[in-house]
């Protein structure tokens, strides 16, 4: 598949990611390679050139246990998958200022890219671009039988961006595919400071009901809830300019067959690994005490903590509102039936008719309440839930920064110790072992110096990335909330207008009772 070529070249620090995906595809033989910058290698990047680098990186990053996890997935097609889910290699990319911007303008001078050194400028350029991609998740279909059944969703993408091969295409995906995508993105980007949107949560109860095959109201609602959550998840992921270009994301959206993400199953070994990791992280969080030299980070962390608390509270209130409105709708329906019966037994004809009218009005109102409750839920409550989960991702990113700092400090301390050991060696009286030991220590010190430098660079990089991400996140947040709240208020307006209509229709009937 053409997807193999999407991998950015491992060599060269001053590269930029693909601007025009099309150009790298092997099929159009007359690919305009001339417009490619020199540092980009030939089209078919073999895995071998990546191989050794990868191993090094795998070893280098002991805490990135996900790396091992993704290898499990790559069993079917080692070539492609190793390339795609190759965890640490994109870590190289953010070291240089992200000059990676999608421009659908073919053949434009790529020199433009070089001059864009600040993220803000790039953002403006993106704004000028039509960020035109729309993803919808629809048509949930039950596939299979019994406990092995699952829901397949159709993921349709409509876009005019040239990053994609077509303008309008769709694929079938199941829930674990989404989780797999998220875990791949998280393993690649979280530890360098990008805020990766969290995927919708697993729900064993919900899925079991669907598997068992009950076609009732609650399982339909569950499927609808999940479908809507998946759609929002994908839209949020592609709104992120870096994540949009990730090969995993592109493969997810485009390719018709996706390797089964086994590692996302709750009871798999990877799942257990995740739980162990979470526990380890929790302990670490408590033990790392960082000297925050940058007040900006402290302030932001505090801000996000407060926001988290408030959003959770608001979310709880909105959920309670949804619940009560649903209750109201049910009770109104019951009352409508009761009023109809009363109208039937009433022997004064005009009053009887008026009572039946009342019953009808109340029935319509109950439907109105039901719709409003759905609006409350899908617009307001789910937005809040999404943001509560997003905030955990944001907090995770801050924690990664702390871990990076810790690593840097650790290697610095180790360097210090080695230097002291070296100094001590100077004063020993064993000349024969001295030279050998001195050489060893020298090597180790050099290595450690390299590590310290790397650690410092990593720390700076992650801090910079986090700043950008946080400002992007805040912009998104403001935009999302404004839009959704306006939509929500509009739905309330509609409800009131309908109410007015119904009662206005009823009033003459009531007056007609003689």
């Amino acid at each position: 598949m053409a997807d193999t070529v999407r991998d950015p070249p491992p060599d060269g620090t001053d590269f930029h990611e693909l601007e025009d995906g099309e150009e790298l595809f092997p099929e159009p033989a007359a690919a305009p390679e001339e417009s490619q910058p020199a540092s980009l290698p030939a089209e078919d990047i073999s895995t071998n050139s990546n191989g050794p680098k990868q191993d090094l990186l795998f070893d280098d990053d002991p805490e990135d246990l996900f790396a091992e996890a993704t290898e499990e997935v790559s069993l079917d097609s080692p070539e492609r998958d190793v390339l795609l889910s190759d965890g640490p290699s994109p870590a190289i990319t953010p070291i240089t200022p992200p000059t990676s911007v999608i421009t659908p303008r073919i053949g434009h001078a790529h020199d433009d890219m070089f001059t864009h050194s600040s993220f803000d400028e790039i953002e403006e350029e993106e704004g000028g671009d039509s960020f035109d991609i729309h993803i919808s998740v629809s048509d949930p279909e039950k596939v299979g039988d019994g406990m092995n059944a699952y829901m397949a969703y159709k993921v349709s993408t409509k876009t005019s961006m040239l990053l994609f091969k077509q303008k309008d295409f769709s694929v079938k995906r199941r829930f674990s595919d989404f989780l797999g995508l998220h875990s791949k993105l998280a393993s690649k980007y979280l530890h360098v400071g990008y805020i990766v949107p969290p995927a919708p949560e697993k729900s064993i109860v919900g899925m079991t009901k669907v598997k068992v095959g009950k076609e009732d109201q609650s399982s339909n609602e569950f499927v609808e809830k999940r479908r809507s959550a998946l759609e929002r998840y994908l839209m949020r992921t592609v709104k992120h300019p870096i994540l949009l270009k990730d090969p995993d994301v592109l493969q997810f959206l485009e390719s018709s067959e996706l390797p089964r993400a086994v590692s996302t199953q709750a009871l798999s070994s990877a799942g257990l690994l995740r739980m162990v990791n979470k526990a380890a992280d929790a302990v670490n969080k408590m033990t790392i005490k960082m000297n925050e030299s940058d007040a900006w980070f402290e302030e932001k962390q505090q801000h996000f903590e407060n926001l988290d608390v408030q959003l959770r509270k608001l979310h709880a209130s909105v959920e309670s509102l949804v619940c009560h409105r649903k209750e109201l709708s049910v009770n109104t329906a019951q009352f409508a039936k009761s009023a109809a019966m009363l109208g039937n037994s009433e022997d004064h004809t005009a009053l009887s008719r008026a009572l039946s009218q009342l019953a009808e009005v109340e029935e319509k109102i109950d439907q109105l309440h039901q719709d409003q409750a759905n609006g409350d839920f899908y617009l307001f409550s789910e937005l809040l839930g999404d943001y509560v989960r997003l905030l955990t991702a944001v907090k995770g990113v801050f924690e990664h920064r702390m871990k990076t700092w810790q690593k840097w400090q650790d290697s610095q301390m180790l360097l210090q110790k080695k230097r002291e050991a070296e100094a001590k060696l100077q004063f020993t009286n064993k000349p024969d072992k001295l030279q050998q030991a001195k050489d060893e220590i020298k090597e180790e010190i050099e290595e450690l110096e390299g590590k310290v430098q790397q650690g410092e660079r990593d720390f700076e990089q992650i801090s910079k990335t986090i700043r950008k991400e946080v400002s992007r996140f805040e912009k998104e947040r403001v935009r999302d909330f404004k839009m959704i709240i306006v939509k929500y208020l509009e739905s309330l307006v509609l409800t009131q207008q309908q109410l007015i209509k119904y009662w206005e229709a009823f009033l003459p009937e009531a007056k007609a009772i003689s």
Partner: protein
Amino acid sequence: MTKEEFTKMKQELEAEYLAIFKKTVAMHEVFLCRVAAHPVLRKDLNFHVFLEYNQDLSVRGKNKKEKLEDFFKNVVKSADGVLVAGVKDVDDFFEHEKTFLLEYHNRVKDASAKSDRMIRSHKNAADDINRIASSLYTLGTQDSTDLCKFFLKVSELFEKTRKIEARVAADEDLKLADLLKYYLRESQAAKDLLYRRSRALVDYENANKALDKARAKNRDVLQAETSQQLCCHKFEKISESAKQELIDFKTRRVAAFRKNLVELAELELKHAKGNLQLLQSCLGVLKGNT
């Protein structure tokens, strides 16, 4: 609690108290008007004293003994009612009324219960909106971005709409639920009236049977005759007044339903329009800002 929370709570309590007060007052008014409109009851001395005496009426509540007596009377009455209900009535009007009232009473009971539940859910939803409004307010004060003004405006809006929603629930309660509750009790009273009449009928028939037996035995004829006369008289009187009462009941019921349903619809309209206006003006401000 902060000062603003305190004032808010005070306002809420005041509003609730006012709603309950309105309800009770309305009930009392309906009761007194009923009594005044009744041709016989309006002449009752107790009623006049109640209306005119300008000092404190010392009314003694029922003590334990009286309550117990009431309880036993009820038990006896319901047992008796079952027995008497089986008696078929010659008069079509009363037969029809009996069946009608029975069914009507049950349905009103059901409707009253359901309307109560509906109104309670409505109140719960209004309370939730209140909590949402205060959460949004905190969010708005804490936020440093554009959103803060946004949140504060929306929080204000929700405060106002919540008040309207609470008033809608209270008005529904007043006009609909109370109406149904009242007619629940009225239909029960009508049923009781019919029961008394059936009782009188049974007594009359028993007296007739006793008279026939006495005539056959030729003993205590005069006594039997007088008692039969008495029963007959009682029965006819009660039948007459019952008929009148039941017809009145129907007219009153129709009028009350009409009045309350019209008022209910008008109030719902008023509140919905008010709500709509609030929402639209807020939307206008929010959209204008963004």
